[in-house]
């Protein structure tokens, strides 16, 4: 007993020492390179898979880390100064430009495809007109075998499941684009839900980021949510055909090499770069330039079903983007 007591003292010292050793290992950081200046970006979760692949493939100078916080979050973090660049899948509105006093340059990077995904057992294809979408998301149509939906989808047996819309908790450019699209065909929707990054959906559940939406839709039968095409495919979700301006239903199609697509909900992914000088400008410039060069080669951002849903910029868009980048951040030294 007496021996263990004296030894336990040494034991305590030993455990504290080993803890300190481990902690100091962590502090040493497992290899710090002075060249690895890290530029941090945050923004849309729609483009997160794309930007993440780009950051990994990017060879330097510097390195890039990207976090999905939603398009609204990008503005907030940029204004605080906590990130070096933002990414949004919707252009700055006039109000936002005036609010931020034109402090950011918008540089288009790629085209993403916004889809409406559903979880309906036995259904792999579905048509949803603007009116149906409005009715579903406003809670007017409560069940999937509602006559209005059946009429729109002859030959497809819709199950008798309750409709569960899934929305975003964060301010989302995807939501803005989607609600703008639906509102064009439904004044009631425009009035009640509104268009914008945080629409006022009266019913349904909320999820964080488009990842959260994908998870929610994947796990709940009868749910419907808005997200990016590649993610929907990776999650094994059925996606809806939407009607374009002439009323024709189009299957979700990514933008082609000319930057065009018949599908109505193709969005442009923009980088937001502060015009003021920043500490990591070299890295940001290098990364965005690389994205506009190497990053545009199809499949954009890498292989896999996830990536085949993003489309490159058209030639004109690309040269305009490169010019905007040079205007903002100059040329590489």
């Amino acid at each position, binding site marked *: *007993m*007496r021996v263990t*007591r*004296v030894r336990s*003292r040494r034991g305590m010292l030993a455990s504290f020492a080993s803890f300190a050793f481990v902690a100091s290992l962590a502090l040493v950081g497992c290899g710090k390179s002075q060249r690895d200046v890290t530029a941090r970006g945050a923004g849309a979760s729609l483009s997160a898979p794309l930007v993440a692949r780009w950051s990994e493939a990017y060879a330097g100078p510097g390195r890039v880390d990207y976090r999905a916080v939603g398009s609204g979050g990008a503005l907030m973090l940029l204004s605080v100064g906590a990130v070096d660049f933002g990414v949004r899948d919707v252009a700055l509105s006039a109000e936002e430009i005036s609010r931020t006093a034109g402090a950011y340059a918008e540089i288009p990077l790629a085209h993403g495809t916004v889809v409406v995904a559903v979880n309906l057992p036995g259904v792999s294809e579905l048509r949803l007109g603007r009116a149906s979408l409005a009715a579903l998301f406003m809670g007017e149509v409560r069940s999937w075998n509602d006559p209005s939906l059946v009429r729109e989808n002859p030959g497809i047996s819709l199950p008798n499941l309750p409709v569960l819309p899934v929305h975003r908790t964060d301010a989302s450019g995807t939501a803005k684009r989607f609600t703008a699209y639906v509102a064009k065909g439904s004044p009631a929707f425009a009035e009640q839900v509104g268009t914008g990054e945080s629409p006022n959906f009266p019913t349904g559940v909320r999820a964080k980021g488009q990842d959260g939406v994908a998870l929610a839709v994947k796990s709940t039968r009868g749910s419907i949510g808005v997200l990016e095409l590649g993610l929907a495919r990776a999650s094994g979700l059925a996606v809806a055909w939407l009607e374009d301006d002439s009323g024709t239903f189009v299957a979700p199609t990514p933008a082609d090499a000319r930057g065009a697509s018949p599908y109505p909900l193709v969005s442009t992914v923009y980088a937001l770069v502060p015009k003021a000088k920043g500490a990591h400008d070299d890295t940001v410039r290098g990364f965005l330039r690389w994205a506009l060069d190497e990053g545009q080669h199809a499949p954009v951002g890498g292989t896999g079903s996830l990536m085949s849903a993003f489309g490159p910029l058209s030639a004109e868009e690309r040269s305009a983007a490169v010019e905007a980048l040079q205007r903002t951040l100059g040329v590489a030294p």
Partner: protein
Amino acid sequence: MSTVPPSTPPPPHVEKMRAENLGAKFPDAVALRGITMPVIEHKVTAVIGPSGCGKSTFIRCLNRMHEVVPGATTSGDVLLDGKSIYGSAVDPVGVRRKVGMVFQKPNPFPEMSVRDNVLSGLRLNGIRPASPDVVVEAALTQAAMWDEMRDSLDRPGGSLSGGQQQRLCIARCLALEPEVILMDEPCSSLDPIATARIEELIHDLRERYTIVIVTHSMQQAARVSDLTAFFYLGELVEYGLADVLFTRPEDPRTEEYITGRFG
């Protein structure tokens, strides 16, 4: 207020310490009144008296431990080698190095080894001895436990028996080379054999140190002391040679106490 000279002072004697009109108070009670008494060098002075008579308070005034209790105060003076220990310029820490104390319940530092316990007095004063092993051996020898402990110096202090712990506390005190050793009922929690060993030790220590021992047991006082002081209700009633006080006490209260008429 009572001033009682020794009945038959042994020649020659030197006053190591002296209490002069010493009073002591706690926040809610008076413990000592006007004690004037010498402490003779190289003698064992026993302080006896019933519970609550102030004997513990008295010796705690001799090394300024009384004032550690919040709200406790002293009046009067205590001299060590003729100099006051209560002067405003006097550091109580310095006093306690010269006047050591052994407590009623043995209190070695339980987590420290025997060796570290002995050296703890030095460490607590910021002294790093050049040869600690020599210090440890000398102190344990003086405390009559070197032979027992020489092979168990790394045992934790708390694992010793009661008697060993108390002798370890004495060794710890001796390592600082004090001049006076105060003992507050050092044997009251020990068995008779351990008590006997400590009494033997006190007898031997007298040669080099001055000892004041508070004891509940008159028999112990009679066995161990050269001079005895009898306290009652915060006052010094009688002080004199132990032989004389126990056989021919002058004050009737002394006589009543030593004959056991009250405890």
